């Protein structure tokens, strides 16, 4: 828990196919406690699928995923307790449209952890305040802007007090002027020491904050390293080609 350098999550030879489509081709990745890892790469390179595999939303075909040294991808391992420890935020927010922002946030802690509404009131208000949405607790998702919805989705995941947070291109569906407010939330989380893995197209953000950047290409991690190395001196031709397209 406390060891800064301790490996929190570790992927070994992760394979995933959808029919003929081989999406992850033997992915190895280590994420240390409190680290922010950014996955970059073209659409379809396997970033989203990899995140969904880590959260056990998709079962992997082969390989292992160690969380605190325990293989959570072992066939037959109960995924539910793992998902409580690993939160994920999606590109399309996926808020529950029939619930207010606060109900969205409280549902899982109430049902999964058995907390009462009264118990949760204070920490949930604190979360909404911390991420700049105190007056939006009683709004329904369709009354919120995209950036606000995405921040509610982040609060919803945080309310389960996860040890790792996964972010799947969470700013890609946002209008450009709303991207900043969501990135600010990520900055804040990183400062607070949250272990995070991001699939992102925000290269500037990745360069500024990531501890490690991984370039995915056709289901493999082609290159990984400190952001300055990957962005300024990419070793692989494909990395260079990709960066020259997006930067």
């Amino acid at each position, binding site marked *: 828990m406390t060891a800064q350098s301790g490996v929190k999550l570790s992927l070994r030879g992760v394979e995933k196919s959808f029919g003929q489509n081989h999406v992850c081709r033997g992915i190895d990745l280590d994420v240390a406690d409190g680290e922010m890892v950014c996955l970059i790469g073209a659409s379809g390179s396997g970033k989203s699928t990899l995140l969904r595999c880590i959260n056990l*939303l998709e079962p992997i075909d082969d390989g292992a995923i160690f969380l605190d040294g325990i293989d959570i991808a072992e066939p037959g391992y109960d995924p539910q307790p793992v*998902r409580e420890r690993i939160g994920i935020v999606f590109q399309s927010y996926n808020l529950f449209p029939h619930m207010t922002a606060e109900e969205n946030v409280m549902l899982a802690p109430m049902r*999964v952890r058995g907390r009462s509404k009264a118990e949760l009131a204070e920490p949930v208000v604190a979360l909404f305040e911390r991420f700049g949405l105190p007056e939006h607790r009683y709004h329904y998702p369709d009354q919120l802007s995209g950036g606000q919805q995405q921040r509610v989705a982040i609060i919803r995941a945080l309310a389960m007090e996860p040890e790792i947070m996964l972010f799947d291109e969470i700013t890609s569906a946002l209008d450009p002027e709303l991207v900043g407010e969501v990135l600010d939330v990520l900055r804040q989380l990183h400062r607070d020491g949250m272990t995070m893995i991001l699939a992102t197209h925000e290269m500037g953000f990745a360069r500024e904050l990531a501890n490690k950047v991984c370039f995915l290409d056709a289901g493999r991690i082609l290159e990984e390293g400190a952001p300055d190395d990957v962005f300024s001196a990419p070793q692989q031709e494909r990395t260079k080609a990709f960066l020259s397209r997006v930067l």
Partner: protein
Amino acid sequence: MADTGLRSGASPAATTRATPTRRAAYEARMKRRSVTIAVTSTLAVLVAFVLLVPFAPGWEAVQRSFFNGQVFARTFPGLLNAFLQNVMIFAWCAPIIAILGLAIALCRDVRAPILFPLRMFGALYTDVFRGVPVILVIYLIGFGVPGLGLPRPWNSPYIWGSLALVLVYAAYVAEVFRSGIESIHESQRAAAASLGLSDQDAMRFVVLPQAIRNVMPANMNLFIALQKDVALLSFIGPVEIFRQAGVYKSLFANFTPYVGAALIFLAITIPATRYADYLLHRQTRRRT
């Protein structure tokens, strides 16, 4: 100079109410025109109808036997009273249908292998009861079960007739609920699962509330159909409005009571249908 030109160009838009824009004036003119045309054509059809129908050779006889004011006045209160039976039968069938329909829809969604029989039962049930005419089920159950010689309250056609309606309509309602459940995007279940919610909780708190709301208009239509099909129970005994109209018909040797019964049904079903349409309309508008 260019600056002032822009300003003066913008000012008419701000004062739309005083002087309508050319577009607004054009649209108002077109609207007046189409209203005039619609009213004129409707009136023309009505006038033709009223003037021409009495020329039909049998009009006098039809008027006497179907639109007889005297018979109408004497039978209408009795019909209304008999309609209470329909309302009652509807009132106890509807909630049971809603609950059973939902239960069967959920049966069809279970994924655990041990519950496969439940899933098969759900599929079989909807296939069978959607495949047989309502009146046949009413006959089979309404005449068949009391034929077992059950004691007094249990041989009532009210019970077995209602059961027949419940069985058939629950199958339709189940299919509507199932389509509603399937209409909820997989990402909602994924979001629920990612928070550690169980499949059952995801269904109960995330999928079902949305699904039920989405299929509200479709279910409204089914319940309007049910309200009408309650009249089919008359074939196995209960003296509801259709049967009562038949009694009056024989008594007065006149068909007007049937027209009265039809009017009573319409008084219920037209507002209900309009309301269902309104719900549907509001829903499609919200989605776009």
